[in-house]
């Protein structure tokens, strides 16, 4: 019996189907690989985790250690280890770390394979030890089963041939057994023996056929159950309603798995519970990066409660899975919605939906201190529809105030799908001087990459694709678990919940002054992509827009 079916009453399913917007479910939105740029103690590291598409399955981990001693051949005293830690089992429930093997011909690059046993939030703990001491870094990885392998025709033919041989073998064996096995040595089978053998063979063939049919339907059931377990983001429905002069968008998580056994509360990631991106289709021309807040259903207890009861109400609303955001001025049209959330378990995912915005009416109301939105970190950018002009894609994007953002695209190696690259962008004044950057939600920059069909979407930072909160939570949880198991010192209280102040995030000083921001990424598939790069300078949020079309490698 399928547990998901048990959890969802059919009436609710019907209601879900009838509600507002159509949902799109593209598991992790097409870009599962995890990139991390950071440091393991004294060693700058660049880590790529390629999670398995099948759970349980093997994750491939590549660690590039950027330390001076590592590159010199013959001095490979750097040792890299990788360990999978499932969030709720902690380090005690983790197997011993695997030693990552140096990759031949690539000094400083180490590779390991780790088994991921459940669809869950894992912390890949990468340890580096060498001349400069030891260091560890936590890379959060959310594992999900995302595909089902089809059997290749050659293999299917070979297996079918063997199955036919085995089938014929059983039938013939039964025939031979009935015909001859109990005859005294040397006695030849009589006509009666042969008749009985033929009857037994026919019966065996019939029984086997029934068994094989039953086996096939058993297989189909296993397959259906597996497909049911394939990752699907929580179902989200959208509702649009005017609130004074403004359109208010509600996101309602209408999914019985919300509050299910694998659910944990949503926690803020760089200060926001949700990072919501609206991208107009089909041109990807209008873009908004918003931060909805928890809201209660209209009609239910105090939709907008103030003061102390407000925070309690918000917490309830967040738990209930209802969020609202006042929309900025956006051109009418169909928008794809991508909502990045991180759960307390460290499981980070992107919820998707669509919404149709009506034509613009009045200008939005002036800022009202009673209203938490618009969030000052919300931003909008409307650009020309996605276009590709071979052979020179525009590498300069105009920003507000005469500033420009330039994509520092190297001529070689060529940017191709499936090959990792660092995407570097420089913000300059009209006279070409670098513009100093300041933290935008604790980050030097945010990049949003979306393929024109909307099937690939990613929100990343200079540190990579990971959720910084998930990293802090997992690292903090490990520490608190260690503290719990370590002998208590007098006066030491219980470890508090691991929290990550926004200001504590890494802000490389060089990037701040030079106005250059870079993002590690690998375009997973060929296609036409749009990249929005968001930085902040002098209190202004600046969004550069770039297009790129990628071919397949080779």
């Amino acid at each position, binding site marked *: 019996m399928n547990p998901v079916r048990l959890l969802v009453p059919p009436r609710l399913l019907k209601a879900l189907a009838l509600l507002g917007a159509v949902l799109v479910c593209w598991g992790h939105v097409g870009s599962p690989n995890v990139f991390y740029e950071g440091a393991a103690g004294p060693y700058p590291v660049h880590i790529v985790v390629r999670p398995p598409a099948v759970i349980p399955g093997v994750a491939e981990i590549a660690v590039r250690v950027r330390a001076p001693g590592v590159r010199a051949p013959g001095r490979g005293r750097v040792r890299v280890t990788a360990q999978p830690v499932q969030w709720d089992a902690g380090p005690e429930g983790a197997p011993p770390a695997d030693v990552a093997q140096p990759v031949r011909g690539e000094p400083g690059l180490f590779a390991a394979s780790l088994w991921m*046993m*459940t669809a869950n939030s894992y912390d890949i703990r990468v340890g580096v030890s060498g001349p400069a001491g030891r260091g560890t870094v936590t890379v959060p990885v959310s594992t999900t089963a995302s595909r089902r392998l089809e059997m290749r025709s050659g293999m299917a033919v070979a297996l079918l041939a*063997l199955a036919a041989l085995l089938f014929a073998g059983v039938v013939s*064996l039964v025939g031979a057994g009935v015909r001859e096995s*109990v005859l005294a*040595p040397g006695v030849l089978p009589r006509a009666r023996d042969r008749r009985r053998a033929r009857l037994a063979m026919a019966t065996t063939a019939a029984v086997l056929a029934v068994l094989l049919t039953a086996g096939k339907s058993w297989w189909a059931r296993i397959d259906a159950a597996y497909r049911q377990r394939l990752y699907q983001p929580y179902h989200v429905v959208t509702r649009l309603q005017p609130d004074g002069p403004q359109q208010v968008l509600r996101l309602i998580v209408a999914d019985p798995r919300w509050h299910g056994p694998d659910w944990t509360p949503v926690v803020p990631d760089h200060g926001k519970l949700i990072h919501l991106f609206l991208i107009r289709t089909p041109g990807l021309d209008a873009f908004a990066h918003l931060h909805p807040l928890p809201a209660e259903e209209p009609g239910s207890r105090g939709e907008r409660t103030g003061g102390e009861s407000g925070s309690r109400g918000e917490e309830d609303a967040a738990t209930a899975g209802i969020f609202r955001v006042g929309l900025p001025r956006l051109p009418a049209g169909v928008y794809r919605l991508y909502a990045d959330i991180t759960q307390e378990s460290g499981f980070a995912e992107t919820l998707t939906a669509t919404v149709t915005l009506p034509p613009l009416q009045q200008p939005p109301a002036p800022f009202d201190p009673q209203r938490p939105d618009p969030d000052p970190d919300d931003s909008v950018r409307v650009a020309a529809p996605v276009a590709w002009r071979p052979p020179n894609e525009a590498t300069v994007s105009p920003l507000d105030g005469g500033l420009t953002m330039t994509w520092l695209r190297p001529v070689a190696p060529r940017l191709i799908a499936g090959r990792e690259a660092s995407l570097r962008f420089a913000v300059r004044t009209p006279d070409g001087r670098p513009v100093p950057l300041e933290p935008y939600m604790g980050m030097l920059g945010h990049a949003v990459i979306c393929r024109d069909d909307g099937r690939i979407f990613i929100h990343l930072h200079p540190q990579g694709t990971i959720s910084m909160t998930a990293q802090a939570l997992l690292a903090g949880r490990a520490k608190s678990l260690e503290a719990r198991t370590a002998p208590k010192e007098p006066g030491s209280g219980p470890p508090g919940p691991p929290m990550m102040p926004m200001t504590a995030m890494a802000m490389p000083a060089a990037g701040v002054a030079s106005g250059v921001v870079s993002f590690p990424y690998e375009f997973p598939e060929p296609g036409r992509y749009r990249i929005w790069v968001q930085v902040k300078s002098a209190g202004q949020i600046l969004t550069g827009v770039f297009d790129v079309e990628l071919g397949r490698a080779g």
Partner: protein
Amino acid sequence: METILDGAASASDAAPTPSAPASAVVSPPLGAAVPGPLVAAVAGTTAVVGALLWDISWHASIGRDTFWTPAHLAIYLGGLLCGLSAGWLALSTTFAGTSERHGVAVRLWGFRAPLGAWVAIWGSIAMLTSAPFDNWWHDTYGLDVKIISPPHLLLAAGVFATQLGAMLQAVAAQNRHGAGSPQSSPMDSRLATRLAWIYAYTGGLLLTLVSTLFLEYNEPNRQHGALFYEICCAAYPLILVGVARGARLRWPATTVAAIFMAVRLAMTWLLPLFPATPRLAPIYNPVHHLWPPFFPELLIVPAVALDLLLRRARRPGGALAAADGAGRPSSRAVLAIVLGAAFFALVFAAQWSFSELMLSPYARNWFFAADQWTYRAHPGPWRYRYWLEGDALGPRAVALSLLLATASARAGLAWGDWLSRVCR
């Protein structure tokens, strides 16, 4: 010429007696030693059964899996040994066999070999087929966390066939020898006894194999529930009655059950001597050595009763003998009901109370291994409780168990009577 006795006289002093049953007409046709292919088959199946338990223990304590774990290799090499020895037997019998050897072979697709060899060949092909199928299965649906999956059932069918092949080779060799015949030489009767024991041993391995297939449904925690008794009643009377009916030992079912328990206990006591560390997250239970399978079912208890009943059924004059001897389907059914009821009653009596011991603190030691859990087992009081949710042992379950035991015993009688006549 209908019987072939070439060389028989030189191989044995025993002369066939006209009054002897058909299976005992011929003295050892293939020499006075246990045939080499039979030795290879028995060695192969021993390796397969031992390695299966080793492999399950590996999955339960180390977890990480490639095709190339020693346990996997032992399973496949054991299967290959059975298949190759049988293949050699088929080729040598077909192309270089004497008429004497042709006389104890059955024909299949133009080739000649003893029936057991054919079954073993089929089994090893099935095992080899399951390997790429299982690999694809892992790639598609993930590393298996359950024992029963389609490729594993194919593997199980293959393993069963190699096992059955060894058993059929043994029983045919046993049946070709007129064991206990007064004319037998001491050497001949020693060989007959040896063959009878080899046959019982292969029967014990078969029983072990069946129990291994149900290992994840037979924990002591389930032994107050319905499923456990239904599985026992469906599976074990068939093997115990069937093998016993074909055996030439005084306590055949008891011997078979004792061999099953000995093999399982050997694994229970030996496996934990080897250190092991889980290699997969999450680990909810720290494991430091290979996981031992829990103490086996006390099948020796019902087996003694089955032996006594089967012996009574052979004794002339008694009510059971009337049921058995009449040979009519209805009379056999009476015997099957008696055997099935006895089996259920004794399994129930033994396991109901023994599982209470297994869940008590007295069983948490190396002997009973009741405190040994896999690395994925969460700690908690559930470990030493009965898992009765949705598995209550009510009157319906008892009736079903009795029905299954009767059907299983009836099938065992039919199978066993055939086994007692197989001589090729």
